[in-house]
């Protein structure tokens, strides 16, 4: 800003700092809780707000599982992380691949019912997973895909949002580029690979970030299609560790798991941030 008004500057900083605190504080509490023993967390009310000394044990317990002080068994989180990672990657990459191809077809090919197809894709925007969850479950179960990676990912791959986004992007690519490629002798797939893909690089990066987090955070769908422990994603794992009723909850392990579950999406955002911002800033057209 060019203006120099100390009061406004202070105020805006205040608001920003407040916002950061509101967002960051729960994360901090989670972290602190993961560094204490389960006993310390339960006994001290309110909970201590400085990190304790149990950090190594908490994370070891969460990652590798094992017996707790109260005698209950905690399942290891490491394999769940793998399940989550694989599903999130498959969902993100699958979504991008399918959306790119369908947007390419809708924008660049004249086939009967083209606009009908587009509108059908568009209409599914109004039908999120939760709305069609029972019929989808029936199909997945009939196909014998329960407790498989396919069951976890395939129904989530089709994406109207991403298709729509790529369609809008393709529409901004000048027609002359298509024609130049035709004169250069590039067939449709060659054009797609050599021209469209490199041009959509930044949108792909942005979508990857969004879709990876979407895939990672899936809860309801895995809850339905997985019944065997080795196919549980980490988000479900957290919930399952919080035992209801009389059994004691190992809060330090729960919090450690939560922290662990936060790391991959945070990493993706951090690593892709540059591409992501670049996609918003410079228009390569």
């Amino acid at each position, binding site marked *: 800003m060019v203006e120099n008004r100390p009061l406004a500057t202070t105020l805006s900083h205040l608001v920003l700092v407040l916002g950061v605190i509101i967002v960051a504080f729960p994360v901090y509490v989670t972290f602190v809780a993961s560094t204490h023993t389960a006993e310390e967390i339960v006994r001290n009310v309110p909970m201590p707000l400085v990190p304790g000394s149990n950090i190594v044990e908490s994370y070891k317990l969460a990652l590798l599982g094992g017996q707790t002080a109260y005698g209950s068994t905690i399942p290891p989180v490491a394999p769940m992380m793998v399940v989550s990672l694989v599903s999130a990657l498959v969902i993100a990459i699958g979504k991008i691949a399918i959306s790119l191809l369908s947007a390419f077809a809708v924008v660049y090919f004249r086939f009967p019912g083209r606009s009908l197809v587009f509108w059908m894709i568009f209409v599914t925007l109004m039908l999120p997973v939760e709305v069609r969850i029972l019929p989808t479950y029936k199909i997945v179960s009939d196909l014998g895909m329960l407790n498989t990676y396919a069951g976890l990912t395939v129904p989530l791959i089709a994406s109207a949002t991403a298709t729509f986004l790529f369609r809008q992007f393709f529409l901004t690519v000048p027609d002359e580029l298509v024609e130049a*490629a*035709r004169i*250069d002798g590039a067939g449709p797939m*060659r054009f797609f690979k050599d021209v469209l893909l490199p041009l959509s690089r930044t949108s792909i990066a942005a979508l990857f970030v969004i879709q990876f987090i979407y895939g990672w955070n899936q809860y309801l769908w895995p809850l339905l299609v997985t019944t065997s422990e080795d196919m549980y994603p980490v988000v479900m794992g957290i919930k399952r560790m919080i035992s209801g009723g009389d059994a004691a909850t190992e809060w330090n392990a729960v919090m450690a798991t939560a922290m662990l579950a936060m790391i991959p999406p945070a990493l993706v955002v951090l690593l892709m941030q540059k591409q992501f911002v670049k996609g918003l800033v410079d228009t390569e057209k």
Partner: protein
Amino acid sequence: MGAISLRAVEKTYGHGAKAVKVIHGVGAEIADGEFIVIVGPSGCGKSTLLRMVAGLEEISGGEIAIGGRVVNQLEPAERDIAMVFQNYALYPHMTVYDNMAYGLKIAKRSKDEIEQRVQKAAKILELGGLLQRTPRQLSGGQRQRVAMGRAIVRQPQVFLFDEPLSNLDAKLRAQTRLEIQKLHRELGVTSLFVTHDQVEAMTLAQRMIVMNAGRIEQIGTPEQVYGRPASTFVAGFIGSPPMNLLQGQAEGASFRIGNASLPLPAAAPRGGPLLLGLRPEHAGLGRDGEGWPLQVEMIEMLGAERLVYGRLGDAAFTLRIDGTLPAPRIGDTVRLQVPASQLHWFDVGSGRRVGAEGAAA
């Protein structure tokens, strides 16, 4: 080799009742190595015609042959042509080198051959130092040259230019015009150049095709088109300021506009209603009492010349005189001397040229 034949070429958009015909049976023969400019106002179908030659638009009727081979059903890449687009259409993510090499790569030429052809084109177009840049880092003129380079490396039978100069500023445009001329002399490749700019058309063309509303008005050398326009449209479109067109009655050796009667240096080709065309620079100032009376209304000084706007009877008339001559005063009546050879006659209804001189090809 690179001769182009257009035979009754038609283009229709849409079907049935909604069909709109934009090209009405265009025919032309273009010899190998010729530089042809297609010129016309916007919407006259000149770009559509070019795109049909390129294969980017379907041909609704008639035939187009390139190098003696009918290309109606061929893909653009199979027609042995190269095209330079108005906005250059360079691939934004590729370097200059890759932009030029892309077509050859697809055609699966050897690396050495690609390298050699690109370097040669870069040398011709003075792009040597820019090969590793991306189009974003180039100026408009440089992008334009890269677009031409991309055409050159293909070594096609025909170059197609779709208003390639209209995105350049005036100075660069004049310079590029000369470069294109030079390039054509060196390479000798048949070229079709579409423009709406008559200066480009006049300076570049060996022959020009003047189009209007989907039809060819005239095909000829710039001298023929300028000197013997085949219709009032051509007369008004080529030349700036345009040819004066006076509507009146030819009666023997005089031409009557409203109440005024102008003496003719030579008899009109026929009597009755006619359009008389006369270029602004072809009338001269005459002595008092002789020639056509022009009442001066406005004067523009352009440096080398002066434009005098006035009235000849009821009709508006523009006169171009040497800038060194004394300017007539506004409100005065000057006398015009009209050489017989510079009078053009057109039919009032059809706008076509009448008289023996109208047979310009």
